[in-house]
Every structure is written in structure tokens, then in C-alpha cells.
């Protein structure tokens, strides 16, 4: 019996098997994609986000050396006039502080320690701090550092959803690279800027723990995560 036809079918089947395999491999795994370039892009994107969301923060630790209660006036010279003031007590709880030139009125009851923060990203506090007394105090320490501003992260988050291509352009991110980011405060909340990721392909992720100046004037550590694909 003639089997030539069957042989041809087997040949075609073999070809289809081979071609199908090649297509599947190329679909799932792109050999032309440069992993080190993607890792560099990931580092670049997270640094760009940090640079764009960072702000200078001056911190002064104030120790009140008298046992008296009531509002107190603190004088700190040389602070940039464009910076607003924020204050927290010893355990990080926000306090009311109002700046007038070099004088800061700190609303307190009996706390004998406060940290004053000065930054352009702090909102002017609405509240009363009347009749501050000249209770003696000393500045225990001062430091100026660059921290991530929650306000700026929220602005980036808004731009991410309102005009993603423009944000990419502003951050200098190549068109071929897509990204998402999040800022997570442990046990509190997360600011997410996310979009759909591809079903196939790899996603490169990087997380950094950074000090964040919060909207309420306090400072907290949070995880900034960037994903690119």
C-alpha cells in the first residue's frame, strides 16, 4: 500500500511542531530585551521620582528647660522666609506652631520637648497660639536633610493619572519604558500610581525606605516602590 501521503502529513506535522515551538518561545521570552538596560532604567526611574519629590527639611529639637506650662515663643534666626513651620512632640504627635518672621509660637500644654520642621512644602497651620511666654528653652540639635514630600508624591500621583505621557516626558523616561510607583506607610496607607501591566514579560521592581515629610507636618518613614516593564 502506498504511504507517501502519510509521510507528507508527518513532515508537515513536524514542521508545524517546530514552528509552533519557536513562535511560543519568542512570544514568552524576548531574547532581544536587554536585562541590564532594564535594571538601569529602573534605577533611573526611582532616582528621578526621588529627585522630583524631594524637598529640603530643616529640623530643630527644642528642649524646654522650665517646668512652666503654656504657649512658648521660640526664636530661630536665619530660616528661609519661604519655609513654613511644623511641629511634633516627643512621640511624633503634631503640635500647632505658627511662624512670624524668626519667631515661632508653639502651642503646648506641658510638653517639654518639641521638634520644629521648616520646609516650603509644609502648609501654614491654621490654629491659635496666643500670648506665648518667654519660657526658657534650648535648641538641642539641628539638621538639614533632603526628604521625600508627601505633597509632591501626591502631585506626581495626580499627573500620573491625568497626563501619563507628559509625566514620562517630564521625568525623562523613554517611551518604550512604562512605570508605576507607590509610597507605602507601614500600618497606615499607601499612595498608588498604577496601570495595567503586560500579561507576559518581566516587571522590574525596586523599593527604598525613605523619610517622608507628611502633609500634617510630621515626619515618617515610608517605602517608595517603583516598577518598570
Amino acid at each position, binding site marked *: 500500500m502506498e*504511504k*507517501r501521503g*502519510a*509521510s*507528507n*502529513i*508527518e*513532515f508537515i*506535522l*513536524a*514542521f508545524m*511542531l*517546530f514552528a509552533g*515551538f*519557536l513562535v511560543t*518561545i519568542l512570544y514568552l*521570552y524576548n*531574547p532581544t530585551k536587554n*536585562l541590564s538596560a532594564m535594571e538601569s532604567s529602573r534605577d533611573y526611574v526611582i532616582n528621578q521620582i526621588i529627585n522630583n519629590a524631594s524637598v529640603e527639611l530643616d529640623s530643630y529639637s527644642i*528642649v524646654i528647660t522650665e517646668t512652666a506650662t503654656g504657649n512658648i515663643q521660640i526664636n530661630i534666626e536665619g530660616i528661609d522666609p519661604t519655609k513654613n513651620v511644623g511641629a511634633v512632640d*516627643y*512621640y*511624633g504627635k503634631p503640635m500647632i506652631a505658627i511662624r512670624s518672621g524668626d519667631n515661632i509660637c508653639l502651642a503646648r500644654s506641658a510638653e*517639654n*520637648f518639641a521638634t520644629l520642621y521648616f520646609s516650603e512644602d509644609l502648609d501654614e497651620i491654621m490654629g491659635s497660639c496666643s500670648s506665648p511666654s518667654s519660657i526658657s528653652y534650648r535648641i538641642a540639635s539641628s539638621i538639614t536633610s533632603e526628604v521625600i514630600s508627601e505633597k509632591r508624591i501626591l502631585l506626581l500621583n495626580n499627573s500620573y493619572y491625568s497626563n501619563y505621557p507628559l509625566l514620562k516626558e517630564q521625568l525623562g523616561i523613554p517611551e518604550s519604558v512604562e512605570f508605576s510607583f507607590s509610597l507605602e506607610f*507601614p*500600618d497606615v496607607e499607601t499612595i498608588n500610581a498604577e496601570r495595567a501591566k503586560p500579561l507576559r514579560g518581566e516587571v522590574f521592581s525596586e*523599593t*527604598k*525606605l*525613605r*523619610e517622608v515629610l507628611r502633609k500634617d507636618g510630621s*515626619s515618617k*518613614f515610608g*517605602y517608595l516602590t517603583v516598577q518598570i516593564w
Partner: protein
Amino acid sequence: MVNKKGIIRIIEASIAILIILVVILTISLTRRAATERDLSETITPLLEEIAKNNSMRDEIITHPENANESIMAFLATRIKEREPNIGYNVRVCEIADVCSLESYPSDVGGNIYVGSRLISSSLIGGAESKRVAIFLWVRG
């Protein structure tokens, strides 16, 4: 006699698939050269956060023997919950002491990274100084 040419083609295709698979896997593995993650970058902000937390500062200065437990609980929220494959430990020592691990961890999969920082005073504890050392490693 049955013509075996088709069967031979299928066997050839299967062998070709195997060869290509081996080549792709080899390339894939060499491209992902095993590079151990540098955990020292993780330690610095953790120490910074501890130093800025006045409750922990007080405990480190006033009750260093209990501070280990508090810092371990803090590290659990920062490391264990996020990266369970990372092992960690902490020691609170006097400044002059060699602040090393009491025993070598059994689950170390590479290097052990350590970073330390002085906690020099607290409002409640006064001007006492202690050294806090954090140890991190990838579990093997």
C-alpha cells in the same frame, strides 16, 4: 515496507527543539548571573528610623536588655512581613564592646550584612550612649 521518513522528520524536529531549548536556557541563566543583593543599603534607613523614634531611643538607653525585643518587633514589621526570605537580628551594646552576633545563624545563604549606629542620648534616659547593630542576611 512502511515509509519512515515522516517519523524521522518528527524526531529531527524534536531534537532541534531540545537543542534550541538548551541554548535559550543557557543564555537565560548566564544573563542572570547570580549577584547577591547588597543588604547594607537596607540597614542604614532602618537605623535612621530607630534613631528618630524617641520611644525606642528611650528604651535603648534606659532598658537596653529589653530593647532587643522591641527592635526585633520593629524589624518584623519592616522586614519579615515584606521580605520573608531575609533573616535579621539585632544587638544593643556598650560603645566599647564588640557588637557581634552571639551565635552564627543556621539559615544564612550568603553574606551577613551589618550596620551599627550610636544612640547617644534621650530625653528620659539622659546622656548615656549605646550602640545598636542590625544584622541582615538572605536565608539559604
